[in-house]
């Protein structure tokens, strides 16, 4: 069974630390603990500042703290990169290899190849 990672693991790391929501909200400079509660229940997403504060606090990378969110954003971005690559390839085929377009095409192709699990299959 393939289970997706949860959108965030804030609650888990907080519970392991033994700190209360009030403590964490004080440490991360949130207005109240209810904000933290909303983040933990995935009703809202924290600001970048709060996310970085959590990273500093727990000693865990933001991409691990917000694992599910990170996965979905990554997947989405990769798909968009593939789409842009296809578009650029069409332009290269149609108009010839102009410097700017070629550079973009090569950069995106290179980035996609560097990514894990990327299959070099032409996106339709």
């Amino acid at each position, binding site marked *: 069974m393939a*289970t997706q*990672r949860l959108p965030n693991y804030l*609650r*888990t790391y907080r519970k*392991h630390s033994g700190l209360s929501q009030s403590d964490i909200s004080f440490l991360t400079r949130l207005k109240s603990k209810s904000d933290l509660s909303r983040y933990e*229940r995935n009703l809202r997403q924290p600001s970048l500042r709060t996310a970085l504060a959590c990273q500093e606090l727990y000693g865990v990378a933001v991409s691990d703290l917000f694992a599910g969110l990170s996965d979905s954003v990554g997947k989405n971005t990769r798909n968009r990169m593939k789409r842009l690559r296809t578009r650029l390839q069409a332009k290269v085929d149609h108009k010839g290899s102009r410097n700017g377009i070629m550079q973009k095409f090569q950069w995106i192709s290179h980035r996609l190849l560097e990514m894990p*699990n990327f299959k070099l299959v032409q996106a339709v």
Partner: protein
Amino acid sequence: MKHKRLTRILALDLHPRSFGYVVIERLTTLLDWGVCRSYRKTKKLQEVLVGRRLRPLLKIWMPDVIVARVGERRSKSVESLFRQMKKEINGTPFRPITVSLHYLGRSKYERAVALTTRFPAISCKLRAKRKPWESEHYSMSLFEALAIAVAYRAGNVPSLTAAYSGTPSK
């Protein structure tokens, strides 16, 4: 992807007025734990426990499987709570298991001590061993839930799934 194969288990230890819960991922990652209680003295007690305590847990943790212990000596209120929960967790596989947690320890306290060595994060919840004239602390329910989760994960307990939901057991 390396995170594709996770299995989140929500284990419940049911009591007439409360339930202990534990959420584990794989075998070693303890995600959440606690005891939910209600002090209402009305007939809506079970609705409160299920609607206001269990429902948010299901929403947050999205478990793949929910495990609860089915003992032979259950009170009517626990049975009622059990039925309410079954209604609530529609869609998620619900696996009632017969209890045989003795391999983790003979008594509840022994089990709790054994589990705190495996999961040090919950060691702060362990109380001193109770005297025979003292009543059991409510947080023991949490350790029982963890024992159920560990036992289920280890595959040491027979599942009664077929009898309860009509689907083949794991």
